[in-house]
Every structure is written in C-alpha cells, then in structure tokens.
C-alpha cells in the first residue's frame, strides 16, 4: 500500500548489547524494521523489551556500557544516498549533522531535552543555528513562528520564559518545537504523551498529526497506549525481548494478529467502551524473563499458551512473511487462528 514511497530508514538484524559486571544484557537482539517516507510507525511491547535502546541506537546515543554489536541501520540522507548509521563515528560530523537536522527525537520527559537554565527561545535559536546559517534576529523570528506552529499560547512571551515557568503540556510543545525547528524527515518519539493528562495528550497528538501532514515527515512512535497506536500509526512493530515478533499494518495488528504475544497484549488491556458485566481481563501469563537468562528457542515460550514443548523450546522462529506487508516470528503463525479485538461498536466496523 505504501510501496510507492521511498524507504527512509531500514534497520536490519540490529543487535545492541550492554556489557555489565553481571553479564551481557542483549537489549536489542536482532531487530528489523522499515520506515517509508512520511509514514507513521508505532513500536509497542512491555517495558524493558528494548524499544528505547533501539531508538537510541538509530541516533547513536546509546549510553555506556551499551554497544551496537551487529546489524545495519540504513538512512536515506537529504541527497538521496543511503548511509549506514552504525558505521559512523558516534561523535563524528556526519551523525551530528543527522541528529536534529534530519532525524529529531522527543522524549517522555521534556526536561531530558530542555535545559533548565536557558530560556525556551535561546534553546530553539541554538538548535536552528546549529544546522542553518542564519543571523540571530532571523533565528528568533523563526523560533516564534515554530512556537506558533505547535500552538503554543503567546509565543512572543513564552520565547523568553524558562522551562519551569510553563506547564507540562507547554514544555512538551516547546520540546516538539525544538525537534521540528530543522524540519527533520524522521521524528522519533519515545512515549511522548505517557506522562500527560488525556486532555493534554489529545492536544499534542492532534498537533503531531497536523505537523506530520504539513511537513511530510515520518514518525517512529513508541507508546504502550493502544488508543494512541490505533489513532497515530499506519504500521506497527511489536517487540519482545529485543526482537521484533510481529510487524503489520495497524488494521491487521488489531483485527488479524498472527503472533500469540500481540494477541495477549491486545486482550490484557481495558478499552473504553468495552465494559460488559462479569468480564475479566486476561493478563499475559508470567513475567518477562530475566535479561541474563534468555529462554531457549522462542523467547516467548515461557509465557505462550501455544507452546508445543518441542520446537518452541528448541528452535528460534524466524521473522517471516505471513501476509501482505505482514511479518511474524512464530512457528505456527498461520495456523493458530488468533482473534483480534472486536470492533468496539458494530457500526464502527461497517
């Protein structure tokens, strides 16, 4: 469906490991995904499954003692050439030009990208001047414009305020404004609305959607909120223990999942409008295994209802094509007949 658009980013068999005194944490252990130009891709999975480490690997900002151990991350530069980000020096010129200039990142906690001791305006002006040769007065003008674009109230005043002087929702807007100031072609968003109220979240999501349409940028969106996934993304990547276990168009993820983990995630969450008498949630059995003791075979076998006790415990399933644009990493993906979530109301599915 999106095949007319160029591939913007392609992660292939990425492995990012942390060498700690207790042993090696294989935070990302063979993850692959593709993002096309202008596409919004969601990443979901339980905490600790490697989402943030994968995103940080793209920008080469994996903190010590983390290291990319294998795989490639190919990104289409402005000039059309595909560059392998894993081959770049993590402090070198090339990756620094890409960071902020071509790929921007926003976080759950805005204060992780905003400095408390500089005004909002100074920080955005600096970001602009890092990538564009413009005089200070012009950069300030551009800053007010971008603040207005992210629907910041009173941008000409807010520009001279410090982060602690504005509300959480406004700080989130300021961080987005800074991320967008250089018109990136890829925006990486790591749970950007998790800490916000639903009302503020709705404002920020509407803003991101509008900006995506306006700038034509692609978004890689990590969230654990299925509503956000459903409303914000076209394509979804499900991760478990550092691997992609399923990737498919968002409609397939909700209505025709192929991996038992995706199925279990969908059914463990209460969804607004779904209340029915005597209903019970179905939690995913057990817990995420200790990262130092990865299970043999299929890493999900310790919690999977369909574990066959043989192949599942001995042989790692490959991520393979199970439908158009749809991949799953399960030996039995085609035959399990998993149910998706029913559409919340009959009329909606009409």
């Amino acid at each position, binding site marked *: 469906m999106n095949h007319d658009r160029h591939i913007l980013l392609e992660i292939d068999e990425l492995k990012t490991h942390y060498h700690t005194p207790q042993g090696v944490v294989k935070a990302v252990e063979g993850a692959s995904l593709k993002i096309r130009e202008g596409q919004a891709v969601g990443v979901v999975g339980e905490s600790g499954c490697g989402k943030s480490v994968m995103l940080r690997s793209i920008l080469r900002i994996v903190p010590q003692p983390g290291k990319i151990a294998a795989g490639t991350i190919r990104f289409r530069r402005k000039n059309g050439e595909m560059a392998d980000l894993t081959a770049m020096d993590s402090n070198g010129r090339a990756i620094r030009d890409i960071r902020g200039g071509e790929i921007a990142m926003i976080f759950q906690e805005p204060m992780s990208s905003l400095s408390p001791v500089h005004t909002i305006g100074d920080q955005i002006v600096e970001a602009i001047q890092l990538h564009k040769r413009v005089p200070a007065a012009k950069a300030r003008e551009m800053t007010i414009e971008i603040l207005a674009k992210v629907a910041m109230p009173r941008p000409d005043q807010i520009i001279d305020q410090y982060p602690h002087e504005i509300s959480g929702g406004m700080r989130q807007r300021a961080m987005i404004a800074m991320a967008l100031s250089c018109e990136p072609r890829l925006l990486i968003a790591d749970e950007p609305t998790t800490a916000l109220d*639903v009302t503020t979240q709705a404002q920020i999501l509407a803003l991101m959607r509008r900006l995506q349409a306006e700038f034509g940028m692609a978004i890689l969106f990590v969230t654990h909120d299925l509503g956000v996934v459903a409303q914000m993304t076209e394509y979804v990547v499900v991760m478990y223990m550092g691997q992609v276990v399923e990737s498919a168009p968002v409609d397939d993820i909700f209505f025709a999942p192929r991996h038992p983990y995706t199925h279990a995630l969908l059914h463990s969450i209460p969804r607004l409008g779904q209340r029915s008498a005597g209903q019970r949630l179905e939690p995913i059995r057990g817990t995420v295994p200790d990262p130092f003791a990865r299970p043999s075979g299929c890493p999900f076998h310790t919690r999977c209802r369909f574990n066959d006790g043989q192949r599942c415990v001995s042989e790692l399933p490959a991520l393979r094509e199970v439908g158009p644009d749809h991949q799953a990493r399960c030996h039995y993906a085609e035959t399990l007949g998993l149910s998706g979530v029913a559409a919340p109301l009959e009329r909606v599915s009409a």
Partner: protein
Amino acid sequence: MSSISVQAEPILSVRDLKKHFGGKKTWSGAVSKTIRAVDGVTFTIYEGETFGLVGESGCGKTTLGRCIARALDPTGGEVVYAPKEGGAVDLASLKPRDLRPYRQDVQMIFQDPISSLNPRMTLLDIIGEPMVVNGLARGEEVKHRVGDLLERVGLRAEYMVRYPHAFSGGQRQRIGIARALALNPRVIVCDEPVSALDVSVQAQILNLLQDLQAEKNLTYLFIAHDLGVVEYLCDRVAVMYVGQVVELAETSDLFARPLHPYTEALMSAVPPANPRAARAPRLLEGDLANAANLPPGCHFHPRCGYCVERCRTEEPELREYSPGRFVRCHRAGELKLDGVAELAEADL
C-alpha cells in the same frame, strides 16, 4: 465487579470536605495565596462498592484520598465513617488518639510502588510492623500472617526476608497491597495503583484487586486517570475539576450519557483503541484552572464550549439531577452531550 446491591449501607459519607494549602503569613509578613486543593466535596460511598475518582492532574484527587484516610488533616467538612459495630464517627474531626481504633479500617495503596516502600526494611518488617503496632499479632504469628498475605497477593512466603529493591514494579505493587491488607481494613483508598505499571502487569493487579474485594467485602475509593480502567472496574464514578465534584453517576450512565461538558471532553480526549475509528477529538483548550486563582462563575467556563453569559458570573451548585445522578452545571439536561457510543459513531 460487584454491582452494588440496593440494600448496601453507606460506609463513608463525605460532607463538604475542604483542604486548603497556603494562605499563611510567611516570616516576612506576606500572605501566600490559598490553594483550594479540595473545595467542598460531598458524596457517599457504599459498603462493597468501587467508587472511582477521575480528573486531570492537580485537580485534587490525591489530596481528597489522603484526607479521607486521614493521612492529611482536612481544613473543613466531615468524613462520616460507619464502623462495623454500628454508629457513626466523623474521622475528619477526631483527635489522633481517638482516631486510633478506626485508622486501621481505612488504608491506602499508592501510585508509586517504589518510593512508598522503605528500602531499608524487609517485607516482613514492612507488612508485619503495622500488625505489631496495632496489637493484631506478635512473634511467630506475625511471620505466619505475613507469609499468608504474601501468598495471597501472588508472591512467595520466602520473599519476606528480602528488601523491596529486589522486586519488579508489579511485585512491589503487590507488596503495597499486602501491606494495606495487613490490618484487615474495610476501606482501601487506591491512588492510581496501576498507573506506573506496564500494561500486562496492570491486568494482573486489577484482577487481584477484584478478587480481594469479592473475598473480603472490601470497599475501594479508586483514583485513576485512565478512563478505560475506571469504566472496567468502578461501580460509580465522580468526576473532579479543580477541587470540586462536577458529576457523579453510576459508571454505565456516566459513560453512556454524560451530563457535564467536562465529562464529555474527558471521554472525547481518549483515543479509541480501534484503527477504523478515525476521530478528531473535541479538543479542550488551555489547562486546568489554577486552584489558587479560580475563575469567577463556573470554574470550567474558560474552557467550556457550551458556556453562556450566566456561566461567567454565577457559580453552579452540585444538584441531584435524577436519583443518584449529580451534576454541577447550569445547562445540565438542556445540552445533548455525547457518550462513548456517540463519540465512536462520530468517527465515521
């Protein structure tokens, strides 16, 4: 999820409860602005029900919950508790000494299972100490009880010798629940007990809370901001806006047909977990009103899409719109507001 039976008795009656912060003279003589964190809240909670409390961050949910559990001293109003042995006591006005016998009946579970457990105490001390202090058990019996409680919340009895840091977020929340259960409470104030947990762990904890309620006839005041969780778990729900209840109803009524514009706005802001429902929410602009500087008239009027002249000057009262349904809006009933069903329909 027990639907409250008709004969259920009130267990807590909150009357015009207030908690104001600040407003005191500082050393320089200046008076700080009074923050009306809880500003005249009235509702009744029935035995065995789950009573939900929702609203935006800072609207006063935690403060209200803490006043009810007397972890904070209210500025005014009553919290009338009906003890098992009959009668009625106002927890809000009791002196600490007189409060003692009732304190164990109302316990709390916190949002942040990490900071609410003392890192230097073992689980045995964390869960067992309140038993000893309140004279419920001594010596070996404490160990037995702690072991039983740990098993009841899905942990192993052997874990009692360990410290909280050795446990995951979900396990720590189980420890917090075991601690709250240690004194055989009748009411538990659950302050966002699953907000900090991973989705899959949330389901386990919600199921555990439901099972314990059924088993011990517990009453929950359940504070949350996830409307999906509230709809799933609660029998009745109160919606709060800057320190006041603006709507109160049975869960299904509230979600099917909200009467207050703020309730509608909150529900509309939740992105539907269905990719085929491509809806643009009705955005609520601006932020929660400032509790230290409230707007005149209806406190919600600067953000309300249905505001009329009267709303700007005259403050609406909380009134009983129909039996059991309360709303604080001049235009309640006159407005045709959308419930979850219409909101999903509007998506097409």
